[in-house]
């Protein structure tokens, strides 16, 4: 068993009287891609938001690289090395593409490193380089997704969390996004991926969890889940 990057223990989150997460536990080993699949409203986004510090955890623990980060404010979670590509991309529409990327590197002081990472990102997404001076709000959906991923990478995270990166993209872009996710992982970044596109996610992931109405109902190596009857029926549309 390799080292553990992120561990979530018996996590409970409430929105008012709604019990959104009912005791979730999961482990993300270092260097792997772990995916959390499930239908709309299952609690996937809530799980990531809880780790990132955007929603309050009522009970349970979030442990990153051995350190308890439960209910730490988002900016401190980011500084520890966790980046989130939020649901709906959340590009800053009034900032240029370049400024959006710099926002990702907000806490970094190493100018040379930032330059290096920008070059790496332009290799990953050549189209962003052509659009550097454009306002973020003028990009197409696919370009915004690339920018959102790049912006998160600019903080050089050790754990990258992605919330539905394939949502709303043209099919050709969807496979491009999954390829990029694998590429980023091969360069050494641990990834926690949330997807409704279960097939795409399980194909690139090492390990998977299935979430239903706030509870994990199934887990296993991604290959096994792909062949699991329940997963096939409920999430892959294979009867």
């Amino acid at each position, binding site marked *: 068993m390799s080292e553990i990057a992120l561990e979530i223990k018996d996590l409970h989150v409430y929105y008012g009287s709604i019990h959104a997460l009912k005791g979730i536990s999961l482990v993300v080993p270092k260097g792997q891609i772990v995916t959390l699949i499930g239908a709309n409203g299952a609690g996937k986004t809530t799980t990531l938001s809880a780790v990132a510090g955007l929603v309050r955890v009522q009970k349970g623990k979030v442990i990153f690289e051995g350190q308890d980060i439960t209910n730490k*404010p988002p900016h401190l979670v980011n500084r520890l090395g966790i980046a989130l590509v939020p649901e709906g991309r959340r590009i800053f529409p009034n*900032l240029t593409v370049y400024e959006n990327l*710099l926002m990702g590197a*907000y806490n970094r002081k190493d100018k040379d490193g930032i330059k290096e990472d920008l070059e790496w990102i332009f290799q990953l997404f050549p189209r962003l380089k052509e659009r550097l001076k454009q306002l973020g709000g003028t990009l197409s959906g696919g370009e915004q997704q690339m920018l959102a991923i790049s912006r998160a990478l600019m*903080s050089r995270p050790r754990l990258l969390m992605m919330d539905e990166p394939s949502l709303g993209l043209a099919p050709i872009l969807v496979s491009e996004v999954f390829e990029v996710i694998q590429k980023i992982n091969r360069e050494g970044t641990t990834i926690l991926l949330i997807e409704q596109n279960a097939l795409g996610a399980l194909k690139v992931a090492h390990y998977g969890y299935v979430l239903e109405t706030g509870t994990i109902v199934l887990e296993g190596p991604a290959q096994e889940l792909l062949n699991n009857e329940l997963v096939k029926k409920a999430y892959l549309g294979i009867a």
Partner: protein
Amino acid sequence: MTFFLQNFFNGIMLGGLYALIAVGYSMVYGILRLINFAHGDVMMMGVYFAYYSAVVFSLNPILSFTVAVLGAAALGFLIDRVAYKPLRKAPRISALITAIGVSFFLENLAVVIFGAIPKSFLDVFKDKSILEKTITVADARIPLLTFLVIIVTFAMFSVLFFVVYKTKIGMAMRAIAADIPTTSLMGVNVDNVIGFTFALGSALAAAGGIMWAMRFPNVHPYMGFVPGLKAFIAAVFGGIGSISGAVLGGILLGMIEIFLAAYFPSVMGYRDAFAFIILITVLLVKPSGLLGKKAIEKV
């Protein structure tokens, strides 16, 4: 021509002062969707800081103004921390009512500390000859003070635009105006940036207030009310939330007031009413203001 020039410079000066104060309203609104009704009173406190550091602690004018501007910045930061920060997640109306409360608090605090009897700001200057000097531009005699005020005002705008558009914290301010949670995900301590925004706006308001007091030297605890209100109207006129809008709205409002009063002296007594007519017209015809974007409700 002479008459026009005199009024032109007066208009730029008055408008610039409105603009300096209006920027603070607009920046805070852009970030928190809050009309900070205490803004005019922060300006008033700034003027008192300048008055006391010059008259009581006998600092020279430049030094006392610097102290006052920094003091007002600290006060703005403190007001956000104590009064508005605890209400970040509360309904917007709570913060608005709190702003009115802070306004009353500052006014009454000033009565207690500084006294209700008006003071003359001219006491700040030991050598009053500077106030008498004039410069002649094409036959028009313009007070030197007017020029100084205009120069300082535009210097401050340059600094402001540099901070907002060329620095890292300015970038964070613009990011926060678009999306607070996502900005915090970038590792930005949002509360500090908001505090900095209050400090910056308050510093500009204090600078505006000090220059206002050189022209209208009656210093009293309620002196922030009228310029505060006018600056608010200027911010709405230009498009609240937009910094360049606040600058444009302020200068236009000052120009309109001065020129209407100059060319239609019979309506001089209604000068303050012009501002409100502009406000009502803008709200009826183009509520987003001259440079404002169409209102996108935040969800």
